[in-house]
């Protein structure tokens, strides 16, 4: 493409973006189409990828395609492996995308559509995608070291130990909260339980098919699996005819026990039986649903029902989660804009497969932009449903009483209108007993999706789409929980292995089983606490999850910033320091409020003491129903407060340690690092998604040369 066409094209993209943002900024009290958000996002991503990501790659990181990547130098056909850039993009995206970007924006919609939209787009461009790309680059320059190893070797032992504990603890919280989302979506929903339950035999069948019947036929078995999955969703609609309604109407407590037992069994079975095939299904569904959603939104072009900014943003008294816009929108959205968990995937696994250094831009930065797009779609789905409905679904059962009348009344107090009949009709349309207080985000997203798909594709399939959405969310989450349990197990074995050598042997069964058991027990316990929380588990635990994830991001960005100083690139350190500073302000403010706020709705300890005093005076405070529940609130709030304070302290330790190192490096103009020395690369590969004519020519020439050498 010549320069003039290119300029015209980018000016066009910029104009589209500017126009969309202007409409979003100025529209008040009129009907705003959701497409403005969608196109504002796409135009912003394109510009950020073209200009900012390229600036980071060329100027800041100085990617060098003549330098051999670890995949090239250490190729072993297992973890180190030169991978086509587009294939690696797919692998990396499948690894980072999960339920987080779907759930967070839905909950954040209580503040209106504007804060969420702005943070998802601005956050990904300047924080999330930067973190993913830069961590990936530095890990790649260190033969694919993990985040924890980089902290230990580049920052120090104190920071390293703190990072190890923080990463493990944060992962447990994340698993527990994700599992809580599934429990809330499946509780009292026989249709959901049946279709999710059937995924287990389907995955087992796929596993045996690949192992014994037709080894290696992955695409074939995935096609069969997806077909069976659709049958399972349809079958769920016939629970009554199958006589299974009572047997499958499970309470949240029963579901927790099922999940914990399942999680343990899944983590000790050979991976080919359950984990690998379920991963194929989940990846396929993930991509399928995202494409379907994008197409559906464009066809349906729904109108936003939410206000741009609600009063909860300024008052901080929203029913979905407590706290004001700052800092809680940034905490709640989490994964779609900036996700610390990605730093774990971007270090370790993906860098060992990169063919060329320049690919960190498309895989790291590009992959995260795609994740952000998923978050934007989820936000839109939550903002196009009737807002009375939204708040009826997302207010805790303690507030609505769990009844149509109670919910209608509660929502009316919030300033929205929906009648009990409308609530009942909505539940009937998706064939659920009720949609009142179905917190956790998943049911709301499913409801929004069913509405969008219904408008876009017609037919009388709302119930099918609702359960389809529930199914794929649960599938993602269960895959994440299984894989997370395994990763946690390896971390635990590795840590205990420092004192007891044999325990680190991953193939030693007693160690593997006991470590898996401990990990499942840890997240299972927090899940149990969340489910039994009279104040509503999501309401209480989701902020903990969000803060934990953003604190992990602070660790990731700290590593990025320190390494820039050590490499003598102080003048570009702002690329990491700006998002890091912002993230620290947000997470520390949020942690401070959650720990020290005297408002019982916000501060965990204030909440605990309020309920303790009332209990000692012999009173029962709503929503607790009896003295036992009062005790529970006191205990849960104290536990959450302690966890919250611990995470924040661990991160402070790492940051302080990092500042010491960074200042030393800055004064010295750089310090030695553990970067592996340059080895000349022999591979030729294009740099970006689409290869240029010269790149194609270079690849052809190189391949011909290689073929010649072999002969």
């Amino acid at each position, binding site marked *: 493409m010549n320069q003039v066409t290119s300029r015209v094209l980018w000016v066009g993209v910029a104009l589209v973006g500017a126009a969309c943002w202007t409409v979003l900024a100025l529209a008040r009290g009129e009907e705003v189409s959701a497409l403005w958000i969608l196109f504002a996002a796409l135009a912003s991503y394109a510009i950020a990828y073209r200009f900012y990501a390229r600036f980071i790659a060329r100027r800041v990181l100085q990617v060098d395609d003549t330098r051999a990547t670890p995949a090239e130098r250490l190729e072993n056909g297992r973890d180190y492996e030169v991978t086509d850039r*587009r294939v690696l993009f797919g692998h990396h995206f499948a690894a980072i995308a999960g339920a987080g970007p779907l759930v967070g924006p839905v909950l954040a919609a209580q503040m209106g559509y504007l804060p969420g939209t702005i943070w998802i787009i601005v956050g990904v461009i300047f924080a999330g995608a930067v973190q993913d790309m830069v961590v990936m680059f530095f890990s790649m320059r260190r033969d694919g070291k993990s985040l924890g190893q980089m902290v230990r070797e580049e920052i120090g032992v104190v920071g390293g130990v703190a990072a190890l504990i923080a990463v493990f603890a944060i992962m447990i919280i994340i698993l527990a909260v994700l599992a809580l989302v599934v429990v809330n979506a499946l509780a009292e929903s026989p249709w959901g339980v049946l279709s999710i339950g059937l995924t287990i035999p389907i995955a087992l069948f796929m596993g045996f098919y690949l192992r014994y019947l037709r080894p290696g036929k992955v695409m074939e078995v995935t096609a069969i699996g997806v077909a069976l999955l659709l049958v399972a969703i349809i079958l769920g609609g016939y629970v009554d005819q199958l006589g299974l309604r009572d047997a499958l109407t499970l309470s949240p407590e029963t579901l927790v026990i099922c999940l914990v037992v399942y999680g343990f069994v899944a983590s000790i079975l050979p991976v080919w039986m359950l984990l690998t095939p379920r991963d194929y299904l989940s990846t396929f569904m993930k991509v399928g649903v995202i494409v379907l959603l994008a197409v559906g939104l464009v066809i349906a072009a729904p109108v936003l029902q939410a206000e741009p900014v609600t009063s909860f943003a300024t008052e901080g008294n929203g029913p979905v989660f407590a706290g004001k816009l700052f800092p809680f929108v940034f905490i709640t959205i989490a994964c779609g804009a900036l996700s610390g968990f990605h730093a774990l995937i971007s270090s370790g696994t993906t860098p060992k497969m990169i063919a060329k250094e320049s690919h960190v831009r498309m895989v790291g930065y590009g992959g995260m932009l795609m994740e952000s797009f998923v978050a934007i779609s989820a936000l839109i789905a939550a903002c196009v449903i009737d807002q009375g409905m939204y708040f009826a679904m997302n207010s805790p059962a303690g507030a609505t009483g769990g009844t149509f009348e109670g919910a209608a009344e509660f929502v009316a107090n919030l300033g929205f209108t929906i009648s009990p009949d409308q609530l009942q009709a909505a539940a009937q349309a998706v064939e659920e007993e009720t949609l009142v207080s179905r917190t956790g985000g998943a049911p709301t997203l499913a409801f929004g999706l069913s509405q969008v798909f219904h408008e876009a594709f017609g037919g009388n399939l709302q119930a099918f789409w609702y359960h389809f959405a529930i199914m794929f969310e649960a599938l993602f989450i269960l895959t994440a929980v299984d894989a997370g349990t395994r990763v946690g197990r390896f971390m635990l074995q590795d840590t205990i292995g420092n004192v007891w050598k044999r325990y680190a042997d*991953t193939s030693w069964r007693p160690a593997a089983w006991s470590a898996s058991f401990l990990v499942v027990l840890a997240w299972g316990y927090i899940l149990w606490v969340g489910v039994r929380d009279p104040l509503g588990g999501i309401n209480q635990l989701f902020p903990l999850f969000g803060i934990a994830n953003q604190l992990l991001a602070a660790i990731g960005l700290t590593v990025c910033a320190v390494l820039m100083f050590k490499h003598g690139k102080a003048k570009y350190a702002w690329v990491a320091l700006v998002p890091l500073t912002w993230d620290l302000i947000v997470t520390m403010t949020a942690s401070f409020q959650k720990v020290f706020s005297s408002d019982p709705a916000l501060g965990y300890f204030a909440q605990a003491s309020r309920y303790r005093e009332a209990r000692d005076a012999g009173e029962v405070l709503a929503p607790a129903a009896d003295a036992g529940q009062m005790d529970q609130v006191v205990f849960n709030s104290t536990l959450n407060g302690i966890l919250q304070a611990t995470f924040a302290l661990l991160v402070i330790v790492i940051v302080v340690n990092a500042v010491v190192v960074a200042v030393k490096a800055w004064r010295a103009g750089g310090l030695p690092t553990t970067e592996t020395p340059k080895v000349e690369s022999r591979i030729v590969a294009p740099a970006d998604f689409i290869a240029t004519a010269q790149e194609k020519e270079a690849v052809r020439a190189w391949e011909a040369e290689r073929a010649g050498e072999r002969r």
Partner: protein
Amino acid sequence: MIARAVEGLRWYLREISGEARWDAYREECAREGRQPMSRREYERHRAAHRELDQRGRCC
């Protein structure tokens, strides 16, 4: 045009699902004059590696 797109999609799916690995392995064996193991053995071997694979799935 359409034929190329279909071919590209097929290539991508085979690569990302790992099915193309088997072809690569056989080509490699043919080049080096080795006798390849059977498909079943090969997939068993890959599954055994996957057992110790620590890659996670994110939230």
